[in-house]
């Protein structure tokens, strides 16, 4: 379970302080598919970075499946990211000159999994996203949709509890975007917790719950179908 209690994130810039998040509190249960939405500057990326242990809150408390972020050092956070989290980014963030296999294998290089076991896991993850025939192709040679599928395979390879997706369809055409969201939906149906940051209503519709931020605070938190039908009806 993810438990966020009154977390704030302040940035200091040229002597003045900006508050990107203001005492945000919510809970995400295991197996949920949550979309975080909001206009630019609302704090959704900041929230995702804190939830994914890549940044720390200035104040407040954050517990990820019983592990309190404020009690952990950077190495412990890295270990949790490695074993219990998967990441999908808008810009794919693949190693362009490395092969699909090498990209998917990346998180396992920092784990304690044996090389023989590693191979099986990588091949399974590549197969799960339907890219087996591209295993030894350089990532830079793939289409946008294929690149994002590689990124999903990389996020899945360590069998994480939670997958964080930051605008995963932002750089894709609508068809590829639909495919990616279908994959994420299936993963959620298979039991993975998905936390998605998006500004696209269409993408958010794949989630079950929506947290809408405005000026660093939660504006709305509820079921996607209810919120979208009220807020975006006719748009």
């Amino acid at each position, binding site marked *: 379970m993810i438990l966020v209690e009154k977390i704030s994130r302040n940035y200091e810039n040229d002597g003045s302080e900006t508050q990107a998040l203001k005492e945000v509190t919510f809970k995400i249960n295991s197996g949920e598919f949550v979309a975080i939405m909001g206009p630019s500057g609302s704090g959704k990326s900041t929230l995702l970075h804190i939830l994914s242990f*890549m940044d720390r809150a200035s104040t407040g408390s954050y517990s990820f499946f019983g592990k309190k972020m404020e009690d952990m050092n950077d*190495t412990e956070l*890295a270990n949790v990211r490695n074993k219990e989290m998967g990441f999908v980014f808008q810009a794919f*963030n693949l190693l362009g000159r490395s092969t699909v296999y090498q990209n998917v294998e990346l998180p396992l*290089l*920092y784990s304690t999994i044996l090389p023989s076991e590693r191979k099986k896991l990588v091949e399974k993850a590549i197969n799960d996203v339907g890219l087996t025939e591209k295993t030894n192709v350089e990532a830079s040679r793939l289409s946008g949709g294929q690149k994002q599928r590689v990124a999903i395979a990389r996020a899945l390879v360590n069998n994480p509890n939670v997958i964080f997706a930051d605008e995963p369809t932002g750089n894709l055409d609508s068809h590829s975007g639909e495919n990616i969201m279908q994959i994420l939906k299936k993963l959620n149906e298979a039991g993975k917790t998905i936390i998605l940051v998006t500004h696209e209503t269409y993408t958010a519709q794949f989630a079950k719950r929506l947290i809408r931020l405005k000026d660093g605070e939660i504006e709305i938190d509820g079921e996607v179908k209810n919120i979208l039908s009220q807020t975006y009806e006719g748009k």
Partner: protein
Amino acid sequence: MKVSDSLKTALTGLKHAKTRAILTMLGIVIGIASVILLMSIGTSAQKLIISQVEDIGSNLVFVIPGATQGSKFSPPASAFGIIIKTLKERDLESFRKDPSIEKVAGEVHGQARAVYGNNDISATYNGVTGEYFEIINLKVKKGRLLNHRDNETMTKVAVLGSESAKKLFGEKEPVGKNIRLKNHSFKVVGVLAKEGTGVFGADLDNTIFIPILVAQKQLLGVNHYGAIFIQGNNNYSIEFIKSRITSILRQNHNITNPDKDDFEIRTQEDVLAILGNITSILKIFLASIAAISLVVGGIGIMNIMLVSVIERTREIGLRKAVGATNADIMQQFLTEAIILTSIGGLVGIIGGAGFSFLIYLGISKFAVSDWTFALPLSSILLALGVSTTIGLVFGIYPARQASKKNPVEALRYE
């Protein structure tokens, strides 16, 4: 991260920037090659000098006037220009009577201008007897060596070292010609074969040999000796011969307290040790000069690694996002730096060895036929150690910069 994965990742990183990696390595290649080359030449020169001294013979003892302060590696008092007149003809006579001594030769030396025609050189002249050439095994190339008669009759004749003959006469035949030395005319009766370095590092090829009495009486106006060369009897140990010489000299010079000895006895072994010491210092000096280029190469590595860290900021962010710790990132970049310098070191060793071999071929064919090829294992191990250490030392700063990157900021880097 496992070391094998770290190596694989680092090699992949370098493979993706091949040209840059090769150019970065170049500094280390040149530095290591220079160290190997200079160490090789230094060792070859050391071997040559020592072998030339060894060629003189193994049962030789040299007596020089004045005591040495400090260790046996300290220079004798005469080296500081102090004229010590303690070694006399009486000492030579006493040595000749001792059964442990086979041959004895006194020597005096001085500096003067030697002139033939328009050629005028600054030369060292040695006043010697015929035994001198036998004791230190000098060979004549043209004409003859000095003999007893030259000395007894105080004939002004000279035997030239090979280089002094060349400088004075060029391509002309020196034997039979007259040279002027300190305003005295000397008839050249012989020219020595190329000898190289003699005892105490003397440059025999640039020396002019004249009868000792002529040198003592007419050129220097002295009756003492600058050194006595002794060839021991092979039936006696060198230590015994040394002890006999010591007691003869103490008796002749009325010395009862050994601390007040006014002479120094050195064996060929001592001379070899001194020469070995000098040439080793020379080798270290040469290698130190070459090491400067290694430092420059190391700074080059650091510079390029820093550029690489900036270029790969997003990659660092990604690796951190998927679980790399600061230590993993540091290990990766440090491994890259060490691989770069180690491969550079290996290529440098091969290049340096190849170049040393070419120099050996050139020197042995055109200059010194006795020149040998030397590639000491110690220099190879030193070069490998140094290149790896350079990678470690100059790689640490860029690796630390990489490891300290914040994953969020790194992923946003454009």
